[in-house]
């Protein structure tokens, strides 16, 4: 094994631009016998420290690489950790071998030569649960499959809920609607499925005592129905050897607790958990069991100020109380806390800004790890670019101003700022891809009273399109609203509806209306006679002929009669001939991938496996299955795009992302939308800027609190406070993404001295005081714009 001092020296020798600061060194040097809790600010190198600690366990503590388990929250983060482990670890091992050879230590060299860092395990806890289920299967049983969320939802709706919902509708709607995003009873069966699944997830993730919950008053009948649906679904999944993520984790926990799992997997001698602030009670229980049974080194890394996923069950209190919980529940030594607060990402101006933001509201202090981490210190030097403010009177003007800034910055001259400084893109290889626009929502079109209204990203797209600047916003539109997707799916419907009545089945009214619109768009597209529309010998043959042949069942030259069975996917792929964008544009590839993913998942639960048959009654029924299991779910927005699918992010376009998507990322130039939509103090928008009531998620947390051990800890802060806390964390994450330039943008009325649009993002405190507004002496006319904001307006 390698000496600790030598390990650090060799690491610093291989990473020429990186030396460990005192706190990072402390984290790496802490003995494996001491559980370690690292509280790390944004840009302070938490992933780096986690990876280094894993390498230390292998090289210094001589823990076998396959006994090192690193978990994180997303697949993307897991890939990043693995990449760093290998790209740092291999040169480090090479350097240590060089040193061993120089010292004549052949034994050490041979040991190092045999180390295989690829054996180190890194992934999401879900992925490990899936792997572990394989370890506890019986001989002869194949590797179990864990269903994607979409398939799980369809199965639940089809096998359990659909048949029982109408009988219990009156009972259920009021109860489950209270915890829906809008607090209203479900508008459709699809909404009801979403609402009840959200409650089910919580029952599982929070380790709720379902027996006590289902008997408790009031609403005991509704609760009984909710619990019975969960039981019935789990019984169905278990009976058919299927799992969803929640059931997989529940099974693993049960097997860990009864001692039947741990002996069958590789020992976990070092457990390292990233993003612990987004852990839920079920995951905590699994981690604690592994820690107890592995009796090895444990490290958790997190930033309580960046916990964003309460709506997915994340429970930040598990991190803020980690020391005590770990000690009490596992009986292992009490963890030591280390803080990382030296920021390598941002300029001092940006660091000061987000430090001020997180400390602005004293009421937030109680939500943080105690004592809170020290203010973040910048490691970079100042370039004299203050945080910028870009506020205009209308959305159009705001979009135009953002486009001006972008064009200015990425021009050869750069953008001259009021303080005489010039902000310019990187002279070599700089491009719009170095900038990002972050917002709470990046939807380009929003439905309001049944009408589609443009959201601010839509104004931005129009403005940038007019100037020839690309925009990359794969989440900007729901799959169902994307023009090419609508035409493609409309063509699928046109090809399959040979009677004109195929779609007359039980699907939601909304889906029915949308599919009809898609078909109209498809018919209009056919009339344009898009290329390819001629055969090589010059004869006219195009999309219209293709669609008509499908409807009439008239076979092409390859078949004498129409084939008895044909895959729907083949039809989709063939239609791409008339859609060059799906073939060539990476963003449209993501849409296509989402459609095909829906189709393959639907194939698992659909009676005809997404094959189209040609003999009745299967001909009609197999086509109806396409309506029910593909077209309607996309129309109902059950499935959407996932930007993780992207192979490359285009360098020539402005990135547009939700703040949640941007977590863990950094950009040289960051625009944060703090209020492009806030034209007045509208009640419906308050949850996005200054909530006047608790969120549905916190309401559900409190509702279940009496039946779960985490309940008391979680509701120690009132629901409304937790709702505010989430908003503070969201903008803290947004502001801390910027490396060199941070631009806050919105409508100018947000900065009016007398504005009534209260907004957490612009430093309003929940006691309704405003940090940017200094009072003025009585009798003095107030200024138009707020008088103590730190922004340099441009």
């Amino acid at each position, binding site marked *: 094994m390698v000496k600790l001092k030598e390990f650090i020296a060799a690491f610093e020798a291989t990473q020429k631009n990186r030396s460990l600061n005192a706190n990072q060194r402390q984290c790496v040097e802490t003995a494996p016998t001491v559980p370690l809790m690292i509280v790390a600010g944004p840009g302070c190198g938490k992933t780096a420290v986690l990876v280094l600690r894993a390498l230390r366990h292998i090289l210094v503590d001589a823990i076998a690489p396959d006994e090192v388990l690193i978990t994180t929250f997303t697949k993307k983060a897991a890939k990043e950790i693995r*990449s760093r482990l290998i790209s740092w670890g291999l040169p480090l091992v090479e350097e240590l071998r060089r040193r061993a050879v120089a010292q004549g230590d052949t034994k050490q060299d041979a040991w190092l030569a045999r180390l295989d860092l690829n054996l180190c395990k890194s992934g999401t806890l879900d992925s490990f649960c899936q792997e572990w289920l394989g370890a506890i299967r019986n001989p002869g049983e194949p590797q179990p499959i864990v269903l994607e969320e979409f398939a799980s939802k369809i199965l639940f709706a089809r096998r359990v809920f659909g048949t029982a919902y109408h009988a219990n509708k009156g009972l259920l709607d009021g109860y489950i609607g209270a915890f829906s995003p809008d607090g209203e009873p479900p508008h459709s069966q699809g909404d009801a499925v979403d609402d009840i699944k959200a409650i089910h997830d919580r029952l599982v993730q929070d380790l709720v005592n379902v027996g006590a919950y289902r008997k408790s008053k009031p609403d005991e009948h509704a609760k009984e129905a909710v619990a019975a649906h969960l039981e019935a679904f789990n019984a169905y999944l278990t009976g058919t050897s299927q799992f969803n993520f929640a059931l997989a984790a529940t099974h693993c926990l049960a097997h860990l607790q009864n001692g039947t799992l741990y002996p069958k997997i590789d020992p976990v001698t070092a457990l390292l958990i990233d993003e612990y602030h987004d852990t839920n009670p079920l995951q905590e229980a699994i981690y604690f069991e592994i820690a107890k049974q592995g009796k090895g080194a444990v490290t958790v890394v997190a930033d309580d100020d960046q916990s964003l996923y309460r709506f997915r069950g994340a429970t930040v209190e598990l991190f803020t109380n980690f020391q005590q919980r770990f000690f009490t529940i596992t009986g292992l030594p009490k963890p030591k806390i280390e803080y990382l607060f030296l920021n390598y990402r941002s300029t001092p101006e940006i660091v000061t800004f987000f430090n001020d933001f997180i400390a602005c509201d004293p009421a937030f202090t109680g939500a943080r790890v105690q004592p809170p981490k020290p203010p973040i210190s910048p490691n970079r030097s100042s370039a004299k670019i203050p945080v910028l403010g870009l506020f205009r009177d209308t959305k159009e003007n705001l979009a135009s101003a953002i486009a001006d800034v972008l064009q200015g910055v990425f021009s050869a001259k750069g953008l001259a700022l009021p303080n005489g400084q010039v902000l310019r893109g990187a002279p070599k290889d700089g491009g719009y891809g170095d900038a990002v626009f972050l917002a709470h929502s990046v939807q380009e079109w929003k439905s309001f009273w049944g009408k589609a209204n443009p959201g601010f990203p839509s104004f931005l797209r129009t403005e940038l399109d007019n100037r020839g600047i690309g925009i990359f916003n794969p989440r900007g539109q729901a799959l169902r609203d994307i023009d090419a997707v609508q035409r493609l799916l409309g063509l699928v419907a046109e090809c399959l509806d040979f009677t004109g009545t195929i779609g007359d089945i039980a699907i939601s009214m909304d889906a029915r209306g949308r599919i009809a619109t898609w078909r109209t768009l498809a018919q209009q597209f056919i009339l344009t006679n898009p290329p390819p529309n001629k055969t090589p010998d010059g004869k006219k*043959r195009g999309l219209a002929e293709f669609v008509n042949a499908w409807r009439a069942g008239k076979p092409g030259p390859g078949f004498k009669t129409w084939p008895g069975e044909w895959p729907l996917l083949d039809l989709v792929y063939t239609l791409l001939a008339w859609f060059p964008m799906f073939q060539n544009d990476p963003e449209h590839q993501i849409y296509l991938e989402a459609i095909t993913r829906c189709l393959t998942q639907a194939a698992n639960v659909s009676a005809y496996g997404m094959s189209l048959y040609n003999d009745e009654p299967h001909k009609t029924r197999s086509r109806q299955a396409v309506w029910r299991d593909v077209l309607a779910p996309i129309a109902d927005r059950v499935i959407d795009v996932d930007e993780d699918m992207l192979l490359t992010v285009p360098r020539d376009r402005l990135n547009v992302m939700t703040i949640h998507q941007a977590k863990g990322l950094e950009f040289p130039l960051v625009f944060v939308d703090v209020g492009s939509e806030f034209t007045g103090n509208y009640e419906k928008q308050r949850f996005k800027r200054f909530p006047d009531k608790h969120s549905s998620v916190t309401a559900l947390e409190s509702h279940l609190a009496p039946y779960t051990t985490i309940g008391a800890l979680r509701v120690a802060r009132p629901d409304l406070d937790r709702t505010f806390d989430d908003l503070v964390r969201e903008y803290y994450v947004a502001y801390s993404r910027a490396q060199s330039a941070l631009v806050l943008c919105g409508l100018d009325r947000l900065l009016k001295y007398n504005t009534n649009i209260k907004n957490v993002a612009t430093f309003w405190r929940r006691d309704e005081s405003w940090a940017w507004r200094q009072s003025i002496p009585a009798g003095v006319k107030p200024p138009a714009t707020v008088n103590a904001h730190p922004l340099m307006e441009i």
Partner: protein
Amino acid sequence: MDLETRSPHAMVPAYSLTGDLLSYLRCNRQYRYQNGSSLPPARPVQLWFGEFIHGVMEAGFALWRAQNPKFPWPCTMVAWDKREQGMGLKGHDVGEIGRRVELVLGRQGKIPRSKFLRESAYARAEAAINQLGPALFPLVAAAEEPLSGSRVIPNTTGDLLRAERYELTGIVDVLTDVELTKCDPNNIFRKALESALGKLPPKFEVIVDYKGARRPPTKAKNGGPSGYWDQHFWQVETYGWLRRTRTTLPVVAGVLLYINELAPSGGDIAELKEEVRDGRTDVIPDAASVDRRNLSRWESGQDTLNLLSMEFRLRRAIRVIEINDKNINFALGEFDKTVLDIEHHIAKEAKIVDIGKVWLPTCSEEETCAACDFAPTCSKPAGQKKPGDPPPPHAP
């Protein structure tokens, strides 16, 4: 102030030997769609069969090790519409093992698509279990062993790529000398290894991989190199390199098992006939043998299952490839070049943002193109001399 360039996260992309590299070598464009974007095949016939065979063999081995049922195992194929509930068959019935594997594959959208394919898959699985199992299972020291290793991407021109290294992954079964020397000298694997390698070292390992395919020809129809034959060779050598990092024993050979050879289809026999005639395959029936006579007399539509002797079928099913430093270096060099090429394409796509201009069709096999989902939009399918706009597609 000049902004910095947004640095992509240091990536170590993972490449699977069979899933990525061999697929890229088949066709750049198809690789981009199927591997880059994960667009699923419309008819995952090959995928289904390959995974079905792997699943049955893995489950069969686990059952054999746990319960050691006597060979031959029965094979009662469960009707398609009974596959959910089953027929209450014994656990080691190949029909029951297959049913369970099929259910899992079905939940991933992989289904056999035709009665014929399903029946032939069960016939092959039954032959694999009962013909290979008794000789193979006792030799297996580790089943479904995941392998991985990291390599530097040979970016000698210093181009801006997202990665400096890549991770190579694969899964194999491992045989060790201990098991091999304990077994009957007439064990087909022992004999095949001794015949291919001559004297074996005192201690060693052998890796095994199943192929849901027939034995590839050693040369292409035009007399040039045979893609699959060579690529399978690289694959074994690379697996050998990966396995060497996990064991102190010398890894001396790889055994590829071409399962289709055990129960060939009419198409397989027709191709074999042609290859024997043209001297493009390495395992041929002896000139005066019954197998030779049966093969030469066979005509399309006739029985194939009992056409050739099991001894001959097993010889064709088993391919032993010697693993040594020279071969390994050659194979790794080929894979490094392939990864570099893929990474160049990825970098180019990020720059010019047009998939069609970056990932060009490169397939030279007409059969592969005929089965390709993206053929209706392909500008240069195999056999077409110059690229051109594809004609409007027909309905089926």
